[in-house]
């Protein structure tokens, strides 16, 4: 009788702990972004884009390995090259462990960023960084899945710039959204977050 009660108590404690961990990660202080703004899992997304080598890519290209994704555009003089340089530095820091990390720069300005443009642009950064572009409705589809936003802003002389979500998105190998690295976040938080996205994969493989 005592033993049954003890098992029940342990069971209840385990359920409570699981609920607590869930709450912590989803709504609690461990939450990564505002409710309703979390990226969908990659498995729930549908989009079809083209990589820097002209190959068709979609969610299935990313699922299976952890992924790091950043939205931007090549006419961006400040935030985009800075972030791509940062990402290059993080990849260097993690070293060979990061070789399987899908690292993708996706343009929000497909009118100007052709496959050739993306290929040239990403060639100036870490060799692992890919550059994806596509039809405007497909860019809209992926941004929507990520809960990323972008907007064209007209300048005075017929030029335009793009406002866009500047955070870096991290997904684990199953395609589940893990967290973002925000633009103004201290650099030292970035690498542990990337390792966390890669870690989920190891756990899954061992279980």
């Amino acid at each position, binding site marked *: 009788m005592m033993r049954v009660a003890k098992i029940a108590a342990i069971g209840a404690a385990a359920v409570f702990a699981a609920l607590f961990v869930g709450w912590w990660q989803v709504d609690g202080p461990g939450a990564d972004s505002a409710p309703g703004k979390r990226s969908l899992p990659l498995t729930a997304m549908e989009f079809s884009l083209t990589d820097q080598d002209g190959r068709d890519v979609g969610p299935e290209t990313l699922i299976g390995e952890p992924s790091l994704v950043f939205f931007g555009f090549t006419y961006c003089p400040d935030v985009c090259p800075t972030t791509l340089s940062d990402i290059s530095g993080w990849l260097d820091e993690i070293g060979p462990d990061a070789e399987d990390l899908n690292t993708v720069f996706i343009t929000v300005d497909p009118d100007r960023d052709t496959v050739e443009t993306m290929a040239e642009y990403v060639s100036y950064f870490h060799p692992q960084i890919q550059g994806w572009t596509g039809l405007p409705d497909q860019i809209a589809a992926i941004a929507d899945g990520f809960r990323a936003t972008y907007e064209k802003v007209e300048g005075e002389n017929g030029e335009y710039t793009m406002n866009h*979500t500047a955070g870096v998105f991290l997904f684990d190998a199953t395609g589940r959204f893990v967290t973002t690295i925000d633009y103004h976040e201290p650099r030292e938080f970035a690498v542990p977050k990337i390792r966390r996205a890669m870690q989920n994969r190891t756990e899954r493989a061992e279980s």
Partner: protein
Amino acid sequence: MFKTFAKAIQSLSVALLMGLPMASSAQQLSENASIVVESPWARASLGMSRPGGAYLTVRNEGSDQISLIGLRAEISGMASIHETRTNSDGVSSMAPADDIVIPPGGMFALEPGGYHAMLMQLQSPLVEGETFPLTLLFSDGTELEITVPVLGIGARGPEG
């Protein structure tokens, strides 16, 4: 790895070489000789259709407050100072900055993610390893011409 290191050394020596003539021309052009510009650098551009970005630090060593009110550059048909902002949703945007007030003894840095020299309508591409002149306009009428070294597209700071 070695390549990155060699590149850093190369950029550093370019910066050092640039440093001397830059400082002396700064003294010549600044009327009150109290404005010092340090560590200017720009990212190489992909052709001429995209805006270029440059960064630098301004130090006010005088006894009066000054404001950085604008830029002029032969290499750009439209040069201005831009401020990058990131809102609470993580959306970043950039817009022309207000005048930048620098108190006596103070300094102000144009650096990635904050303020940048926005070089629109490039008249020639910004080529890594080359330099170009950039004139800073101040509220007291001072026009300070500096020489900006062009680093790689993937540069993170004045050291490359």
